[in-house]
């Protein structure tokens, strides 16, 4: 889980994503949303709207069937 001063980064690999929307449905704090624009294969990618709410729980990463999305804490903010 995140500390107060830590910031979270959310990465999406465009080539891998198929736009199934499971990460959006799974997220408890409504961080993600499907975009209106499409990628080169015609899928709608998830976008992080409000990263302040993200708890770094890792559910979107755990449920993604295409190895496309993951969450990390920003490296400058790692404690110790």
């Amino acid at each position: 889980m995140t500390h107060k001063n830590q910031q979270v980064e959310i990465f999406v690999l465009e080539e891998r994503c198929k736009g199934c929307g499971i990460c959006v449905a799974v997220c408890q704090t409504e961080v993600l949303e499907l975009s209106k624009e499409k990628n080169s294969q015609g899928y709608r990618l998830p976008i992080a709207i409000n990263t302040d709410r993200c708890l770094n729980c890792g559910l979107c990463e755990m449920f993604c069937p295409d190895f496309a999305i993951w969450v990390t804490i920003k490296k400058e903010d790692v404690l110790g």
Partner: protein
Amino acid sequence: MIAKQKSISKENLFHPTDSFLVSDTFPTVWCPGCGIGTAVYNFFEACKEKSIDREDLYIISGVGCTGKIPEILCFSSSAETDGHIIEKATRIDENNPDKKIVVFLNNADFLISGGEELKKAKKRELNILIIYINNFIYALSKDRAFPMTPYMRQSTHGNFEIPYNIPYMACSLGASFVARWTPIRAGWMKQSFVESFSVKGLSLIEVISPCLIYDANTGRILDPVERMAFYNDNSEIQFWVPLENLDIRRQKKIIIGKFLDKNRTHDS
């Protein structure tokens, strides 16, 4: 304390399980929202938790959608024909006894032309983990009924047979670890992958995976999210259930959970 600052460029980006994968082969061939990818990801997470490297693993799979798993892996793995998967596993077990052998099977490999696989695996006393991906359908040839089709479903006049009880079958053959999960319970599924690594002998984990082509001939194909929600509503976690009661019937909820573990003693 001042931490070092590192700029993250696009070349440094990598997924946490990218040490197991070939990144050129993406996107994968599976439908959006298929349960196979979730099972594979959580299997790798379990390997990382047990600190099992990719040199210690050998992954075998069969035909069909599950047979596409070795395409995305960067370590030793192979896709065999129906009915020859456990024979391949015994050859590998003879030559390199240190390797952990993991088999991904689908319905055709497990019940139709490979109907002997579970018996062979027990008879030859392999230390093997069988992950059986059950999606209730022949995904590539749609209209046929087969042993795991639910009652009155999916063939031209409705299937009139009752599907097998796979956990009971595995227990009667002498398996030492039996569980059944859906990809909705991904954390539980990963935990039982972790526990099955410390068990000797045959261990079987049945993954009930949502298939998007199911009920496609009736004209209503659900979204991936709706399909996951369907399995979420119709499943129920119960531990240490007597194995005779684990039939998948139409009017009942699917019972998922962990049912047998020889490392652990329990009362019920």
